[in-house]
């Protein structure tokens, strides 16, 4: 790379809509762009989703009626185009076709939702319909199709998309940047999983309940998931997101020991016993999370978040509920989430959940522990259902 290219890259400013599957892949993109020589300060993410963002930047840009997590991307695009103090040069909106999931190798595929993967094409149309807003603002719209579940294909996908946009880009350099992206993402995920394990260890040690959130990555966005889990946390219940549940083999073998022993599954990551059509990465993980919630003694409640008109969640409503409830674990779902937070009804439901958690958790922990091996890796000494709380 020439000095001129290096200097040009240092000035290059990339805007990424913080929406959809960027919620679990943002570290990949940060690692990738930094490896290419872009300054971290010049990789800008849009804000959390909000009504204000949509009103100010996305209004009139919609092209079709679909779920809110996709619709709201218009607001993210608009904010990156019109709402930056320092203009961006590239609006980078990856069409993530497949995701790198911890279930890879144990599921039939790892695809993203068809709406989610196609969102950039759809949203782009709203900014081209009347005039080319990108050209007018001298912003390159770069939306590569990326198969994150197939790392070998990614360098060429990103090179083809960014060639001519990132000065002096080469394929080998892109391949190194992709490796760096995966490494950064893996380190971030490991860190969060370690923190989840700390929560579980604390719950096991203190015999305290926690709550598992079964939702898509973008429900972490306060404007999509409406921070329902934060309201529950404020009631004193630690929250675990299934995406960051610890995956240490020792712990997973303990959780699924009975299933493995009875030959119902071959590996702790198998979900074939509950979800044979395991094509969708996020759905697969939700189903797996439900299985975990059904077995881990200290997870006494699972809450399901689903957005209005989510066709990916729809077929899994009953299986997820059945998986959780048949174990005696509490299950509450917030379906049909949309742009507005129904604050009043959420408050009432959170109070209800909190009441049930307080009343039932000790019994649930005790009952689930009876079916588990006392040698729990979360504790230095064996656990028993008969131990005093």
């Amino acid at each position: 790379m020439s000095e001129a290219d290096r200097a040009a890259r240092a000035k290059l400013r990339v805007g990424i809509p913080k929406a959809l599957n960027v919620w679990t892949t943002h570290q990949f993109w940060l690692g990738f762009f930094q490896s290419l020589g872009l300054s971290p300060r010049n990789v800008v993410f849009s804000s959390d989703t909000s009504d204000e963002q949509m009103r100010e930047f996305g209004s009139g840009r919609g092209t079709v009626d679909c779920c809110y997590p996709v619709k709201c991307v218009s607001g993210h695009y608009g904010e990156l185009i019109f709402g930056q103090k320092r203009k961006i040069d590239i609006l980078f909106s990856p069409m993530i076709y497949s995701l790198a999931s911890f279930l890879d190798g144990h599921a039939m595929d790892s695809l993203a939702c068809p709406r989610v993967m196609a969102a950039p094409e759809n949203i782009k149309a709203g900014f081209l319909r009347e005039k080319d807003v990108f050209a007018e603002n001298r912003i390159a719209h770069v939306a590569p199709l990326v198969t994150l579940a197939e790392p070998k294909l990614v360098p060429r996908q990103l090179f083809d998309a960014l060639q001519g946009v990132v000065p002096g880009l080469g394929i080998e350099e892109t391949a190194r940047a992709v490796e760096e992206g995966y490494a950064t993402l893996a380190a971030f995920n490991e860190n969060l999983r370690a923190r989840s394990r700390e929560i579980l260890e604390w719950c096991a040690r203190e015999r305290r309940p926690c709550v598992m959130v079964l939702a898509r990555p973008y429900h972490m966005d306060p404007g999509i998931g409406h921070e329902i889990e934060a309201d529950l946390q404020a009631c004193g219940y630690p929250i675990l997101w299934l995406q960051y549940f610890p995956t240490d083999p020792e712990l997973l073998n303990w959780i699924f020991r009975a299933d493995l022993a009875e030959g119902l599954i071959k590996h702790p990551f198998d979900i074939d016993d509950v979800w044979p059509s395991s094509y969708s990465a996020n759905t697969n993980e939700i189903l797996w999370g439900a299985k975990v919630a059904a077995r881990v003694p200290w997870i006494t409640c699972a809450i399901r978040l689903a957005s209005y008109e989510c066709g990916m969640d729809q077929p899994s409503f009953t299986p997820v509920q059945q998986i959780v409830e048949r174990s005696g674990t509490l299950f509450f779902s917030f379906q049909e989430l949309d742009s507005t937070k129904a604050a009043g009804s959420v408050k009432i439901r959170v109070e209800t959940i909190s009441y049930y958690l307080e009343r039932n958790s000790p019994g649930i922990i005790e009952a689930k522990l009876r079916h588990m091996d006392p040698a729990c890796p979360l504790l230095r000494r064996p656990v028993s259902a008969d131990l005093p709380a």
Partner: protein
Amino acid sequence: MNISAKHHFRAYTPAPITREQIDRAEILFGGLHWRAERVVEAVFENMGYRARALPAATRDDLMTGRELADIGQCCPTSFTTGNLANFLRAEAERIGPAAVADRYVYVTAGSCGACRFGQYHQSYELALRNMGLEAFRLFLIDQKKPDQGAAEGGGLDINMPLTIGAVWAILCTDVLQGLEYRTRPYEVQAGQTDAVVGDCVELLHEAFRKRPYRGKKWGTLAWHMSTGYFINVLREVFRRFDVIEVDRLRVKPIVKITGEFYLQTVEGDPNYNIHRWLESEGAEVYPAAIAVWLDYLIRCEVQKLEDKVGVEKGARAKLAALRGAQRLFRWSFDRMRAALGDIPFEMPDQYELRRLAAPYFHHRLSGGEGDMLVGKALWTHKKKKAHMICELSPYACMPNTMSIGAMAGVTGKYPDLLYAPIEIKGDAEVHALSRCQMILTEAKKRAIREFVEVMERTGLTPEEAKPLIDAHPRMNRATYRIPQTGIAAGMAANTLLQLAGARGTRKAA
């Protein structure tokens, strides 16, 4: 609280089925148009099974589907779930649930996609649970595996002769449907086309029932590719169409049907009988051939391999083989179309569709019709294959809504493209048809305008054209081909161009 490993929730798995059991049972299936379903019944019969297509789905089925499965389904899921459920429920009342589980099995296509199509069976299973019919056996056919072997128990063998027979049944009935829809709007004697089509479907049914056995694997594939057996039957179909007298000077807009697979394919309540409704409103319908969908599925696999060339060992060879298979598939369709005088519409080239759609929709975005939906609209418009595109999309269909959204960019660039995206819920007929009618009114005006322009261009009026046609009686038959010129879309306008060309009065383009 019952939480031993054995009592955790488990997904439905069909009980094994032995050959003896399947001999007692009838295989149920559905989801195609009636012509294809009738001939696929014969394919099963030819393989030694008894099979029955479920009755056409109705609005009652929609309601049952909504009642029995999870909330928020797309309407094809509700229709197909309710269709199966109502059939089984009626049979259970008649012969009892145990006998239903013994006497029927259901076979349906599974998909590798992340869209709900790949998960329809979840809805069927939930409906079965909710009806107390968990013992009923439901089998998935992987639509990408023509030779997936025997289901557990060995009774049902999804092998090459069965799959290739079903594909050939689809190809044959596709071209028949194409000929039918190019004929009926112009028939002089009302009802004659339907009567002939009914006979022809039975003819094809009989031919597929008696299809010779040519081995279990590649032998059967080679035979299907090379044989004149089906071509001869289609020639007989063509001969039977010859009795139909037509008046092609009726000016009608051509409406291309596109959209989600189920809604564009079936003919009945699930799409508000839109094919017949459009014809009753004075249009010629350009139906969506299932073969085009199969061709698209092959393209999707080709594209996956294209991405792997240079990265994965052996990808180049696999790609060459698959491209070859695709060419053979298209050649087989063209052979069948030729047997019907090349009158049915041709299959658009998948790679041309991809090129046309590229500025608006990435070709690798899968689910639904993906970029093909955009490509077909542009192909139809640019090549003057139809005056209007009627796109049938289920309410809440995930992939189709995305393609429709991308169409906003297309209609922005081609404002004269008449595009009617109709969102179908199954129970909002008046709303959907009135939307379609608004665009159809404009399409009718265009068809008339186009006809007038061709009159001026050729110097021929309908009054002058009629005696010319009468002087060539072949032109009054359904089997006479009026080529699509690319100058005009409508049948009447192209007929004038044909006459003018023959008479030498056609003016320069």
